[in-house]
């Protein structure tokens, strides 16, 4: 297989685009596509400071690397969840993020969940009915709270995460199977900031997961290959597997599913203005962060519940 641009041997084949590229042209293509996605969806504007959520994995380090190459002023945020499995998962992933930041002279803010809130994610999950079976849900609540808090405290205009098209398509499939209109209406590459919520953006939302991995490998970025021990058997992995089986038979299925949804969303939810019409938010009386239901937010209830026990 030859590179479409220079006819040298290709190193990566993007079946969904019928495009094969050599290392040099793939890396250029990837950076340029990210820039276009940022512009297309109005994710960031000149002069804005960006906070990137980094996990130490392939996607988030690739995103930080690309933003750095595009000269976006982006600092990193690493949240140590206190997860230990067969390996010290959280500590090793923190190390990957630290090495990456040090090598590029970038700022990395680290939040230790256990130090800050008295319990690690597994401990918090163990103490709730919801989290016993689904630690990922507890983890999501904690990460969303910390990410928004860190972005607000640091005066950042936008919080970027490295969710890729496989992540988005898996969420879309889950929300479609349940016909969760509220979540479907809000699924977007960018969520405008409002009422204490910092704008959120996903510049990798048009890349397949294998394509972000290819970028990370080709760029020589060291990342933690091990998966979170709690992700095994997760619903998101199941949905990704289903979608990948369709993709193998019909290349481009995932891309079409997601991009046509983004077009259809405007017809399905014509009155949904992401800045205003989504669920009203109220400040949590405990932490001050916005919450969709009046009263104590789910994060404070979670942390309070565990600390009371």
């Amino acid at each position: 297989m030859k590179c479409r641009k220079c006819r040298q041997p290709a190193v990566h084949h993007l079946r969904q685009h019928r495009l094969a590229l050599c290392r040099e042209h793939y890396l250029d293509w990837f950076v340029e596509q990210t820039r276009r996605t940022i512009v297309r969806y109005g994710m960031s504007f000149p002069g804005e400071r960006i906070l990137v959520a980094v996990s130490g994995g392939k996607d988030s380090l690739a995103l930080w690397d690309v933003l750095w190459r595009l000269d976006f002023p982006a600092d990193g945020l690493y949240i140590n969840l206190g997860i230990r499995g067969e390996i010290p998962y959280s500590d090793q992933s923190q190390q990957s993020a630290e090495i990456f930041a040090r090598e590029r002279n970038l700022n990395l803010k680290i939040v230790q969940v256990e130090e800050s809130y008295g319990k690690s994610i597994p401990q918090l999950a163990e103490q709730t009915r919801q989290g016993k079976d689904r630690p990922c849900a507890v983890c999501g609540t904690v990460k969303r709270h910390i990410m928004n808090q860190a972005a607000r405290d640091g005066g950042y205009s936008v919080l970027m995460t490295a969710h890729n098209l496989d992540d988005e398509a898996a969420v879309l499939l889950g929300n479609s199977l349940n016909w969760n209109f509220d979540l479907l209406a809000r699924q977007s590459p960018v969520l405008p900031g409002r009422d204490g919520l910092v704008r959120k953006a996903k510049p990798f939302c048009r890349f397949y997961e294998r394509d972000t991995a290819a970028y990370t490998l080709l760029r020589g970025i060291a990342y933690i290959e091990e998966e979170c021990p709690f992700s095994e058997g997760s619903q998101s992995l199941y949905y990704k597997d289903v979608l990948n089986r369709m993709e193998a038979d019909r290349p481009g299925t995932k891309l079409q599913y997601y991009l046509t949804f983004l077009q259809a969303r405007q017809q399905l939810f014509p009155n949904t203005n992401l800045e205003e019409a989504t669920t009203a938010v109220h400040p949590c009386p405990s932490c001050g962060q916005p919450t969709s239901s009046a009263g104590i937010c789910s994060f404070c209830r979670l942390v309070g519940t565990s600390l009371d026990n």
Partner: protein
Amino acid sequence: MIHRRKEHLLPAGIRVRKALEMLGVSPESHLVVHNGKLITEDVILQAGDVIRLVPVISGGSQ
């Protein structure tokens, strides 16, 4: 071919695509690395080649 820390012996002369199929591994969820370099699924494997499969799918919370 090394997949999840296990070694699998495969015949020379087959394409990467066929090798993945023989191991029951999806090309959508793995990248193929030969001597530290990414290779595409049409490459023909030679005797003595050591190939590593890199899983690329992550799961968990959104």
